[in-house]
């Protein structure tokens, strides 16, 4: 089997001391930002992007570290959800439902344990899956043409705006704002300056670091500042051991496996990142449980399933990212930028042109999972301590790092001021419940989508019917249309039956990614 040979080579690279160190830094940082409320892996990777602008980090080291941050964020997010009732990440929103109840009942230790072990089980299962699925998808993707890529990107946009968040309208508005920002600068094909309004600083476009850090860090800090005198937080102390009873093990393991089986394929489809599978896993566990009366009062399956699902979905998200160059979450989009900085083009060719890097990255996922299990079981009390950092100091510190990250790109005052302005926009977006993730996705994916569109029409010599005449393209568009309509279908059926629908649209996720 070719795959095993490639994977072994990957391990040979990833086990080198310097890469082990990068993996350890990545998972530790990831757990830290996962535990800290308000900041997450997308912001952290964006803040570290400037490190890739100079020779300090080679590509392999950078990606091993970034993947560790992403993975660690998923592990760490559960801690805040369980002990603080505040999800650290979007993908941990569901965990708060049963996890916080368990903590209140004195079973916080068991909730943390099932989250960590479930993440490990699911992370390992899905890393095995990625090992075999990704090369196969890369093979398949060789037949994809520009029109198909354009359709896939439309699908990715639709899935992040239509399925996630409370309002389709506000999701689409966020996306449009992102697409607009993505247009700023020189058009690569014609060399024309667009949306620069004669400002020289805008000719190179807005650096994604400026946009992401402004939206995620400054926007969040201003938002927290606005509510600091209003919100109180309560940390539930963890009594007893961080371990599970025999009954809790028995109730957890099936939920882990089901969570992984739900999470990986959903993440691998271009269908909106890690938070949707957690909601689905929760509902599946609720339906299958032998103790349905426990749900809402601290059912351990309601922690085990979603936590497994979000980790599995993370690995799933890597499949379209690596094989098609298609990010389906804000964090994945920023990882795509990192690939671009190193002049790597994720896509079907990546496995042949940069096989060493890809396999080292996949091998590092196995290693990272083991590291994270160690960080999150024996050392969990260290992370709990971090929750008691005073909010005032924490958010001022985040602002220091945000300013540093943007300033260090080019020592430019203008960059920092633009970042603050975007931060003010981010503040108002939070205030009026606009999702922030689609902006980042729009900025990064917009220019790529435009390039594919223009390439496709160039090939067809101006004939727009190319987007409906290819069966593959058409099929992808139809899936996108179905996703757009899907959340309204239950209400529509209810209306056809003559009942009054309880609400207009099914909401699957909060869409708060940071």
């Amino acid at each position, binding site marked *: 089997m070719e795959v095993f040979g490639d994977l072994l080579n990957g391990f040979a690279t990833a086990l080198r001391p310097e890469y082990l160190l990068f993996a350890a830094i990545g998972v530790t940082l990831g757990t830290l930002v996962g535990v800290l409320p308000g900041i997450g892996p997308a912001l952290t990777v964006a803040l570290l992007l400037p490190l890739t602008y100079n020779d300090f980090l080679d590509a392999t080291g950078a990606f091993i570290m970034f993947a560790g941050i992403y993975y660690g964020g998923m592990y760490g997010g559960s801690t805040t959800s369980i002990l603080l009732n505040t999800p650290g990440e979007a993908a941990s929103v569901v965990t708060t439902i049963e996890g916080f109840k368990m903590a209140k009942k004195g079973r916080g230790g068991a909730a943390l344990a099932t989250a960590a072990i479930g993440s490990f089980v699911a992370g390992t299962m899905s890393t095995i899956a990625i090992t075999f699925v990704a090369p196969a998808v890369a093979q398949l993707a060789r037949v994809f043409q520009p029109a198909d890529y354009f359709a896939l990107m439309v699908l990715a946009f639709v899935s992040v705006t239509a399925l996630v968040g409370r309002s389709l309208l506000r999701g689409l508005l966020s996306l449009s704002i992102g697409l607009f920002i993505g247009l700023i600068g020189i058009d690569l094909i014609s060399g024309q300056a667009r949306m620069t309004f004669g400002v020289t600083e805008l000719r190179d476009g807005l650096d994604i670091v400026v946009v992401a850090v402004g939206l995620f860090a400054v926007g969040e800090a201003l938002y*927290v*500042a606005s509510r600091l005198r209003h919100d109180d937080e309560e940390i539930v102390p963890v009594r007893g051991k961080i371990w599970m009873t025999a009954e809790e093990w028995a109730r957890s393991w099936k939920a882990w496996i089901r969570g992984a089986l739900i999470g990986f394929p959903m993440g691998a489809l271009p269908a909106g990142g890690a938070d949707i599978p957690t909601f689905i896993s929760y509902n599946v566990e609720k339906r299958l449980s032998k103790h349905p009366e426990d749900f809402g009062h601290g059912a351990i399956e309601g922690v085990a399933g979603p936590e497994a699902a979000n980790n599995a979905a993370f690995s799933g998200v890597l499949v379209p990212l690596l094989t098609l160059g298609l990010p389906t979450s804000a964090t994945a989009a920023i990882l795509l930028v990192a690939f671009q900085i190193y002049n790597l083009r994720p896509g079907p060719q990546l496995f042949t042109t940069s096989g060493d890097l890809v396999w080292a990255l996949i091998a590092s996922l196995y290693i990272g999972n083991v590291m994270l299990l160690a960080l999150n079981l024996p050392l969990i009390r260290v992370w709990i301590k971090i929750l008691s950092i005073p909010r005032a100091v924490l958010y001022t510190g985040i602002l220091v790092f945000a*300013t540093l990250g943007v300033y260090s790109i080019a020592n430019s005052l203008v960059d920092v001021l633009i970042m603050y302005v975007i931060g003010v926009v981010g503040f108002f977006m939070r205030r009026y419940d606009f999702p922030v993730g689609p902006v980042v996705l729009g900025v990064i994916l917009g220019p790529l989508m435009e390039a594919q569109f223009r390439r496709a029409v160039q090939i067809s010599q101006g004939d727009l019917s190319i987007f409906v005449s290819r069966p593959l393209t058409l099929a992808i568009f139809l899936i996108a249309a179905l996703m757009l309509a899907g959340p309204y279908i239950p209400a529509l059926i209810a209306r056809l039956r003559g009942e009054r629908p309880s609400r207009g649209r099914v909401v699957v996720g909060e869409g708060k990614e940071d």
Partner: protein
Amino acid sequence: MSVDRDPGTPPGSPLGLRIAGFALLGLAAVATYGTFQVSRAAGYSVVGPAVIPLVVSVMLSGLGLVFVVRTTAVPDRDLFEHARAEEAATHWPSVLLLGALLVAYAFALGPLGYIPATALFLPTGARLLGSRHLVRDVVLGLGLALVIYFAFTAVLGLRLPAGVLDPFL
């Protein structure tokens, strides 16, 4: 459900939402203006550089209009409730002062230097956000500034402004 309006809730849409609607329309106008500034004369290609900007402008205008309608004529009750809860919880002085402090920090970085600016910013910002441990915050700010400065300049080889400390660093 009673027909009478609760005297506690103000009628009509929250002001902030109406402002947001017009801000979105303003952005749509800017995008449209920008689209028509793109020169069409540039070299031959089937899809010119102005096509996608036009699509984005149309999206922004259309969606922005729907948003304005949803905040006026056909109100989105859930969003109104959310916005009112936000407005009730907002402490504006904190937001404005923090914003002003950030701008001052950005302007101070160059002339004052990274270390003094950051050492001042952290305790001031923390105090604005409600911290009452001045000594701890000052120590923390100075420590963080020093660690970042030397890590960046010595280890990573990036430049940060030395400012007034230039003769000593």
